[in-house]
């Protein structure tokens, strides 16, 4: 019986030789400077607007601004709820004398991770996962792969393990590149900046009783872990689609449509409560850390993790059942 190691080595080599990972690194290397520049100009703009570099004044201004809007009758109800949560959080930072946006490479990583987890990182995962089985089918190599003295489930398992490796690698590379590139502008410090985690949103009230300060490096580690969970769910779903669909293009389009529909639904589904069981609504796990208002009331971090785990498990069951049973026709 062949052990798993040579099979995983095979799959890893194939992905590397296809230069897929290189493409991912290049995309990141182009995109991160763009975001860095955007971040830089927006903080310069803020400094100019408030006429000071003192962050306290800026935050104070922002709270004032939000509170004004809260009083306005023309602001929609959902928007008010979001504003109210923001105000309470900013006040908390101000009270504890911590700058929530102290510019540094590490802060940028935190910002970048939370912005990319719902669309961009899934896209990078799809670049690797979408053709992991369908590519073998359209290339005809599946016949070579499945006529070896290796059980079919082991072959799919090796592909799954390889996906897990690359999901980890993608998130690690994202963090590393975001830090290295943005650090050129914002500096490389900020690892031990305190960040508040554990905000709990109850209706429009922010419950701060569980809030505790964590060092920013730990916060990023937690973010990365949560991003890994949602990226891994995407990988499992993409694996299933890749098993079921024969063309790689169809496989990518199916997954992209699901993920993008999630982004649209987040803004629309406030009152459609059962939408919270869809995986694409639950992808933004890191937002629970910073205490953002969940897209649908009643969602929480354990809830979202459970929903994602259920989707991932179901897609693995389907993948393995179909892959081990299906007839490979021409």
């Amino acid at each position: 019986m062949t052990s798993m190691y040579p099979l995983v080595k095979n799959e890893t080599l194939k992905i590397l030789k296809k230069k897929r990972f290189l493409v991912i690194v290049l995309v990141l290397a182009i995109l991160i400077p763009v975001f860095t520049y955007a971040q830089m100009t927006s903080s310069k703009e803020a400094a100019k607007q408030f006429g000071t570099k003192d962050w306290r004044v800026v935050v104070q201004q922002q709270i004032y601004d939000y509170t004004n809007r809260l009083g306005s009758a023309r602001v929609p109800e959902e928007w008010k709820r979001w504003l109210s949560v923001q105000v309470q959080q900013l006040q908390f930072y101000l009270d504890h004398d911590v700058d929530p946006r102290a510019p540094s490479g590490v802060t940028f990583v935190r910002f970048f991770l939370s912005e990319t987890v719902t669309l961009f990182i899934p896209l990078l995962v799809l670049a690797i996962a979408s053709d992991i089985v369908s590519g073998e089918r359209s290339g005809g190599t599946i016949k070579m792969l499945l006529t070896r003295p290796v059980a079919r489930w082991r072959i799919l398992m090796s592909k799954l393990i390889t996906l897990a490796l690359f999901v980890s690698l993608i998130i690690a590379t994202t963090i590393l590149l975001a830090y290295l590139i943005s650090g050129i502008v914002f500096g490389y410090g900020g690892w031990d900046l305190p960040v508040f985690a554990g905000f709990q949103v109850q209706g429009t009230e922010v419950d701060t009783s569980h809030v505790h300060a964590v060092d920013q490096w730990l916060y990023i580690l937690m973010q990365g872990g949560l991003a890994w969970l949602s990226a891994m769910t995407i990988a499992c779903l993409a694996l299933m689609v890749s098993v079921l669909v024969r063309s790689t293009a169809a496989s990518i389009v199916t997954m992209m449509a699901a993920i993008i529909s999630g982004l649209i639904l987040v803004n629309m589904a406030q009152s459609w409560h059962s939408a919270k069981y869809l995986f694409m609504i639950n992808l933004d796990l890191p937002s629970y850390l910073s205490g953002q208002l969940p897209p649908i009331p009643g969602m929480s971090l354990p809830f979202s993790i459970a929903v994602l785990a259920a989707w991932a498990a179901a897609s693995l069951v389907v993948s393995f059942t179909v892959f081990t049973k299906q007839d490979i026709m021409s």
Partner: protein
Amino acid sequence: MNMETVLSVRHLKKKIGRKWIIEDVSFDIGSGEIFGFLGPNGSGKTTTIRMLVDLIRPTEGQITICGKDINKDRNEALQYVGSIVENPEMYPYMTGWDNLAHFARMIPGISDQRIHEVIAIVGMQNRIHDKVKKYSLGMRQRLGIAQALLGSPKLLILDEPTNGLDPQGIKELREFIRTLADQGLSLFISSHLLSEIQMMCDRVAIISHGKVIAVGGVDELLQQTRGSVLFFVDQLDLPLKIFAEEGMKVKILQEEELYDRSVTDGMRVIEAIIEPEQAAACNRKLIEAGIEVFAVEHRKPTLEQLFLGLTGGGSID
């Protein structure tokens, strides 16, 4: 036959949807034997091959390779098999060597030494470190064979191996296959060309509409089949009447069915399924009836006639 049976197929059946694609396929292959699997396109050759290597699960029937049932001891059974199913598709973005190393990792106990050996067997030392996408079809075939030989199999399955090869390549392949068989390897070769099977194989199974209609030695089967005689004449009605009176099976051939011969306007060709010895008598009858006969030609048995002989008429498609 008292040699060891390498592959045994018993009453293989496959149903897809409501249709029986394979209705009844049975045959045995002994060690060192070159076994041909002959049938027109769409007769179920590839489906059968896919069942032999567990790409498709049979609905009924049994496949045993070196005593191991493919459905029960799949991995043990497949250890004895090397195969190319349809085209030898490899990973185009990897080199020939990387492809071989990839497949070697999927078989226990294959060393780099063995990879070097199979490369030498197919004579690819010079190009093995080029990417597969730069290979010609002939090179891909060779790499495919190298890949199939990696695990030192007892049975080599090749599906239409001469497809896309030039005459020189076909000749080399034929010699190569003979060399492998002389070393004790059994070969299973599918083809839709009778001439190919005739030149390469010791024994043959003939499949039509998902059923094996004959199994036996190639020469043995060909002896059962009569050839035919072509009459090149100036008209159709009268000769057809004469042939009908004699009770002979005939067919009117169109120009494209003549392969290497061309006919001038007004010349018609009738194929009569008769022994060559009867040709002279036939010819006399035609001439006596005042029919112009331009040529009389003996045709060797073709796959089509083999089918006609075996199925007692009826078409092969």
